[in-house]
């Protein structure tokens, strides 16, 4: 599974590499679909790898560190630095993993100038300089999606590039950023394919492109009918089309719902006898549990909702300022208060769906 392996000039990937690639690719797909929380550059959060572990991995797996000084950043530095450079950890871990394989392969080719990420001199810089590690393996294009492409082109100072070769010695071009933190930052290991420029800009550009292509592939799988189309522009067309279609469907459905319910009260207990299946199936597998709460009379529901809902008018106000950030919590507190009101007020009745919903709430 190496859909993104461009370089045909690479020496044949071994079975190990392929397996590793597929594992990494699956990993990356998962990571791709996710988005970093709050801070878009927090790749530590992105890959859920505690930075210390990543550093350990990194240090552990670099058998041929040619520059011992690069090992010096202890994990403590990492902690301090990770506030500003959260992209380190996972990328370093990846670099470590790949570097091992790359090292093995390169050993066969007789070169030793390899990819141990520590061999990079680049100390970390202040938050202005972000060094990224781009994998040198063919599947690293897949793993690259998680690399923040922010200003890749604008921060060439601490990138380390290697030229891929078949039997040629790899030439490292490492620019060291001047800074005193001397933190271990992830590097972008970019392999220039044979016959291509090793200019930092074009390498970065290529890395970016590969990352984008990886994600486009995911999108292609998601959007129906996109698999056969080749060419980014057409795929983009399809995606745009799909998004527009979905939004139109939302419009139509909401209009339909508005027409059906004149009062906008989706009283599920009315719907239950009419439709036992559609709402209940795959949507709410967990809601089909035995009713533990006393059930509510269909008529009594509305009154009961009115009372606790008075609380809700108060709830949005204190959160109005932080609506964007606390919205998840906003909805939780009304739900909790609703629960507290509903439970003592419930009377036994037949309404499994409604009470199940309230249980969830």
């Amino acid at each position, binding site marked *: 599974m190496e859909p993104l392996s461009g370089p045909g000039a690479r020496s044949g990937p071994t079975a190990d590499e392929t397996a590793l690639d597929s594992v990494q690719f699956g990993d990356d797909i*998962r*990571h791709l679909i*996710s*988005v970093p*929380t709050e801070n*878009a550059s927090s790749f530590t959060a992105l*890959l859920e790898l505690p930075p210390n572990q990543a550093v350990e991995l990194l240090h552990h797996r670099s058998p041929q560190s040619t520059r011992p000084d690069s090992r010096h950043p202890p994990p403590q530095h990492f902690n301090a630095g990770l506030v500003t450079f959260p992209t380190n950890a996972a990328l370093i871990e990846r670099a470590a993993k790949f570097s091992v394989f790359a090292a093995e392969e390169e050993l066969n080719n007789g070169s030793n100038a390899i990819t141990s990420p520590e061999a990079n001199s680049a100390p970390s810089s202040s938050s202005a300089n972000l060094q990224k590690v781009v994998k040198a393996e063919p599947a690293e294009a897949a793993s690259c*999606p998680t690399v923040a*492409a922010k200003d890749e082109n*604008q921060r060439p100072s601490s990138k380390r590039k290697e030229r891929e070769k078949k039997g040629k010695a790899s030439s490292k071009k490492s620019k060291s950023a001047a800074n005193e933190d001397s933190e271990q930052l992830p590097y972008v290991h970019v392999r220039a394919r044979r016959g291509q420029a090793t200019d930092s*800009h*074009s390498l970065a550009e290529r890395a*970016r492109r590969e990352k984008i292509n990886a*994600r486009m592939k995911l*999108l292609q799988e*998601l959007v129906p009918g996109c698999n056969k189309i080749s060419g*980014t*522009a057409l795929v*983009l067309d399809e*995606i*745009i089309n799909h*998004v527009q279609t*979905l939004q139109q*469907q*939302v419009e139509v459905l*909401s*209009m339909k*719902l*508005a027409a*059906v*319910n004149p009062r*906008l*009260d*989706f009283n599920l207990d009315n*719907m239950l*006898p*009419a*439709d036992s299946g*559609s*709402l209940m199936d*795959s*949507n*709410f*597998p*967990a*809601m089909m549990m035995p009713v533990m709460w006393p059930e509510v009379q269909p008529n009594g529901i509305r009154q009961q*909702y009115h009372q606790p*809902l008075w609380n*809700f*008018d108060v709830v949005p*106000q204190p959160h*109005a300022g932080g*609506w*964007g*950030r606390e919205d*998840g919590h906003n*909805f939780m507190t*009304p739900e909790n208060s*609703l629960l507290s009101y509903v439970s003592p007020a419930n009377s036994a009745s037949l309404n499994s769906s409604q009470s199940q*919903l309230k249980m969830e709430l």
Partner: protein
Amino acid sequence: MRPPTNSTTFKREFLKKWLLALQLCNNHHNNNNNNNGVVERKNTIKLSAEIAMAAARNGATCWSRALIAKHSSSSSSLHNQTPPPRHSKKRVLRCKRIIRRSRRCIHHGPAAHGPAAAVMRRKTAVLRKLVPGGELMGDEASLIRETLDYVTSLRAQVDVMRRLARASDRAAMCNAMK
């Protein structure tokens, strides 16, 4: 990092929050103005569905935060009693300005000026307008990532709404026949 979108849990979350929001809106409107036009109701439904969808993501994605910010800055029905928070809207605008300015200075790759690149840029611009918060994202890669998540969430939302519509249809029919 945001875990991959689990469709079932997302749908459940979305439905919960949506129904809650609808009740809130409903109550609110019953108290304040008479809100019986179909279009208004549809807007309420749609608005609450959008907010619920964004809330079900729990702020893990850029588009969800942007959606919530957009709705909180506009005078939506839920916020009639409080002045809409102005700072979020300003922040969004400032963000956009910064992104625009930075994009001007970005060093484009070697193929940045060909006709193909222009086509790509036009399409990504369209996509940016479609996806909420798309204009705030500086680079294409994260835009595509956001689109991916947005598409899955939209799909789940459409699915839930469709089921609800079907259920209420059948309920209405049943009640009419009784």
